[in-house]
């Protein structure tokens, strides 16, 4: 073949992961993260059982995001990865956000009185006996 070295980062020793090879790669971060994940699981279990109303979803998702960040950054080595892989992961999340945003925004902003009668949803947001938001027992 005989081609010249690849442009940029040609020196193998400078590869990000090789930083670990210089001092023995440690398993301690993995143990720490594992314990943290278990702790966060306990936290979400406990807060979940509290039934905190409107805040419940936000708290649950926030904890889930924290757990995911730990798994992605440490277990999946995103912390040490090239910018491109981080961009790929981040971009996929952004687009999930776009899909979710416009779809939920649609159902959240529909003009309910115009929904055809008899639809199982979309008249008032479905509740037994047609209760409104502020009349809900919870």
């Amino acid at each position, binding site marked *: 073949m005989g081609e010249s070295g690849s442009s940029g*980062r040609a020196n193998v020793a400078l590869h990000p992961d090789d930083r670990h090879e210089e001092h023995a790669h440690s398993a301690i971060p993995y143990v720490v993260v594992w314990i943290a994940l278990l702790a966060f699981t306990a936290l979400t279990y406990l807060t979940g059982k509290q039934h905190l109303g409107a805040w419940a979803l936000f708290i649950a998702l926030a904890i889930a995001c924290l757990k995911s960040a730990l798994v992605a950054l440490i277990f999946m080595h995103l912390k040490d990865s090239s910018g491109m892989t981080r961009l790929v992961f981040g971009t996929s999340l952004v687009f999930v956000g776009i899909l979710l945003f416009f*779809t*939920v925004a649609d159902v959240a902003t529909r003009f309910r009185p115009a929904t055809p009668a008899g639809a199982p949803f979309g008249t008032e947001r479905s509740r037994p006996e047609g209760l409104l938001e502020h009349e809900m027992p919870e």
Partner: protein
Amino acid sequence: MSPEAASLPEGILAHHFASLERQNEAMRLGMWLFLATEILLFAGLFTGYSVYRFEFPLAFAECSRHLSLTAGTVNTIVLITSSFTVALSIHFARTDQRRAAVVCLALTILLALGFLGIKAIEYTAHFREHALPGKYYAFEEVKIPGAAMFYTLYFMMTGLHGLHVVAGMSVLTWLLWRTNQGRYSSRYYTGLELGGLYWHLVDLVWIFLYPLLYLI
């Protein structure tokens, strides 16, 4: 052939890559792109979930209470631990501790089996109670509009996730065999790393499924 490539098992460095480092970079990028597609695949179901939870908040909360919180929580612990063991196996492979790597991979697969086992028990309970998706829904305890929709989403989301657990287990089993053969070491462990990445994705999806299904 570059000196590093010469010391590798046969056929690791493909002819069209300038260096092993480049090839590793390509493999990682390729796997992350594939994970991005998996994230968007599940996103479709999460979108359906979001819309119908918004429309049927009471039904979703009620049905959630009828899922086995114990099973869900244990499964979460099982998957988190399996993520831990697969990360450990990669650590052991890259520090040339082959036996430990093999043991950790075997543990991961066992934990995955445990996950599936618990899910099977849950599914059996649902079948017994007729808490089933769509037109098969006949769950006596929750009869409000939207209850069937919860179970439709529950089965589709955990079903798709379960399929990925099975796929992940197959990949890990194959990697276990190759690790045992000594294919992965401090010189080259990218294949194992890629399998681990896939398994972590399976864990990531469940990290969101757990609160959204079991803790409404």
